[in-house]
């Protein structure tokens, strides 16, 4: 569970990369430290080799043992027993229980907690995990706790497997490297490949900062979908003309999560959330495709956020979804997007509930917040004549939102469709007002 405090963030170091432990003064430390994570019972010699190479490259190490089966075959700085303890269980008991799933969950939680501590104390400038199938899952969670820009390198044969590599890569700047042969067995090739992982890690950890680009520009995140592209593009152009840098995230679920994650890390100074379709889908279906804290993180951090209900007219359904059957029976509007995906319209009652939930979420904000509503359609599909056009449904959203939103949230209703130029300009103007009210 991510904390709501800003993490040790890239932006704290202005435009330079986070290449020194916090509080180490102006000069970069001569010997950066990295975490090396591995199952020392099976990968001990490979970990020892990596540590040796890192030291030769001028990098100090903190070795974290995530192996639970046998005796460690290398020296750990943080033992498997300590990792298990941080994960809430006793290692001896884990071994006795022979419950692999529980053991994996425990070691995953423990390793992530330990790396989080190291991160918060500004100790580590990178992390390397050498792993087989078991260790990859555990190490990935730990690496993912490090902010963007801090190197996180996973050496795992899963890189070439047809498995769920997306889960390992997550939503941060993860690097994966296939060792080709098992790293449990020392070969000339596996040593060369581990040396490459070490070289990449050392290169980043010991490297100079980015050339400073002068004053740091305020960074604004926005969300975009095909059906809100014209709005997002216009907003982006207007903000760039006002001197902001705009980072655009595709509102695909993963993209929503990546945006919220960047906000959480303190990388983003304001949000223009043009496309919140995933939040709507999440509330209606009890899932969280955009992350469980969608629409709450910017508010918790107090940065300005202007939100539009872009894409709330769309529930993206895979073939076979019962909502498609309801639509085929004439109980919902639908639009066939592709053979695999169909866009289905929420009912008016559902839209009212989505309005209520979004109002509640935005009302938790501690910073300047606005909802700007295009009264003539929430996406390209919902303008008059569009396949999902249903003005009554749009108004149900507005009613639900209005009833439950806190008074401090600015509510603006614009007599235009979301992709009309006029709407984008009003949205941009509202956002700019929020940034000024904060200053």
């Amino acid at each position: 569970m991510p904390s709501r405090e800003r993490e040790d963030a890239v932006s704290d170091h202005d435009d330079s990369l986070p290449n020194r432990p916090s509080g180490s003064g102006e000069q970069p430390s001569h010997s950066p430290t990295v975490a090396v994570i591995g199952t020392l019972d099976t990968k001990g010699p490979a970990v020892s080799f990596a540590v040796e190479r890192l030291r030769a490259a001028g990098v100090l190490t903190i070795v974290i043992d995530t192996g639970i089966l046998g005796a460690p075959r290398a020296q750990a700085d943080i033992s498997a027993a300590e990792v298990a303890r941080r994960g809430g269980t006793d290692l001896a008991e884990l071994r006795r229980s022979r419950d692999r799933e529980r053991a994996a969950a425990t070691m995953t939680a423990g390793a992530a907690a330990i790396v989080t501590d190291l991160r918060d104390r500004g100790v580590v400038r990178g992390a390397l995990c050498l792993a087989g199938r078991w260790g990859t899952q555990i190490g990935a969670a730990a690496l993912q706790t490090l902010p963007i820009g801090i190197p996180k390198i996973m050496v795992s044969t899963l890189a070439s497997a047809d498995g769920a590599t997306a889960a390992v890569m997550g939503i941060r700047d993860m690097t994966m490297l296939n060792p080709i042969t098992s790293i449990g067995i020392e070969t000339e090739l596996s040593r060369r490949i581990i040396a490459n992982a070490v070289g990449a890690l050392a290169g980043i950890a010991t490297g100079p900062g980015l050339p400073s680009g002068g004053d740091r520009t305020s960074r604004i995140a926005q969300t975009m979908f095909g059906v809100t592209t014209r709005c997002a593009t216009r907003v982006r152009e207007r903000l760039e003309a006002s001197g902001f840098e705009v980072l655009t995230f595709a509102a695909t679920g993963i993209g929503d999560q990546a945006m919220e994650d960047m906000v959480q890390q303190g990388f983003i100074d304001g949000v223009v959330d043009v496309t919140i379709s995933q939040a709507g889908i999440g509330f209606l279906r009890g899932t969280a495709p955009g992350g469980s804290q969608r629409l709450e993180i910017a508010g918790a951090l107090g940065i300005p956020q202007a939100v539009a209900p872009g894409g709330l007219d769309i529930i993206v359904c895979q073939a076979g979804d019962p909502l498609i059957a309801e639509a085929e029976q004439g109980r919902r509007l639908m639009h066939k997007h592709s053979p695999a995906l169909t866009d289905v319209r929420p009912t008016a009652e559902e839209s009212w509930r989505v309005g209520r939930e979004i109002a509640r979420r935005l009302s938790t904000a501690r910073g300047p917040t606005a909802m700007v509503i295009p009264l003539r359609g929430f996406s390209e599909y919902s303008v008059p004549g569009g396949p999902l056009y249903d003005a009554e449904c749009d108004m149900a959203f507005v009613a639900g939102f209005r009833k439950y939103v806190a008074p401090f949230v600015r509510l603006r209703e614009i007599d235009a469709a979301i992709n009309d130029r006029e709407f984008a300009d009003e949205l941009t103007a509202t956002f700019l007002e929020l940034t000024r009210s904060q200053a």
Partner: protein
Amino acid sequence: MTEGIRSIALVGTLDTKGNEFAFLKELIKELGGRAVVVDTGIIGDPPFTPDVCADDVARAAGTSLTQLRAGGDKAGAIGAMQTGSAAIVRRLYDEGQISAAVSLGGGQGTLIASAALRALPPGVPKLMVSTVAAVGTGVSHIVGDSDVMVTSPVVDISGLNSLARIIIANAARAIMGMVTFADS
């Protein structure tokens, strides 16, 4: 092989990612390396002159850029650029002109460049920064049975925003780190 020890092949579609590759080239230079740029862009012209132009890449696959553009066969054109860039990168390596390769790419750029990177022998540093890395089984499609190192850039690399600059700077430092610390 001494001349090529700090020379890195930069493989990518300069028509769509020209500025990003120019930035990467500059950073590699600042880190004491030399970039050998191989252009795999099919559609447009590059914003700066590469060391190996896209037409040379097409010709290494037995065709030409004009033919590929006129042919209208997108998959065929990608296949040709894969074959051509793989042959060129491998030749540069065999001749001792490069000791590593790096690429940044979206969907199409990744398809082409990862084929070129996979043409290098195992153990030779090869880094692919790809927007498809975090999607589905994206990594395994790039890697195959090779040791291509794959980094996810989190968002599309289009434009040198502050996030892209961090990702590209780390790619430069990673590839230079690999050649610097390889044989100590």
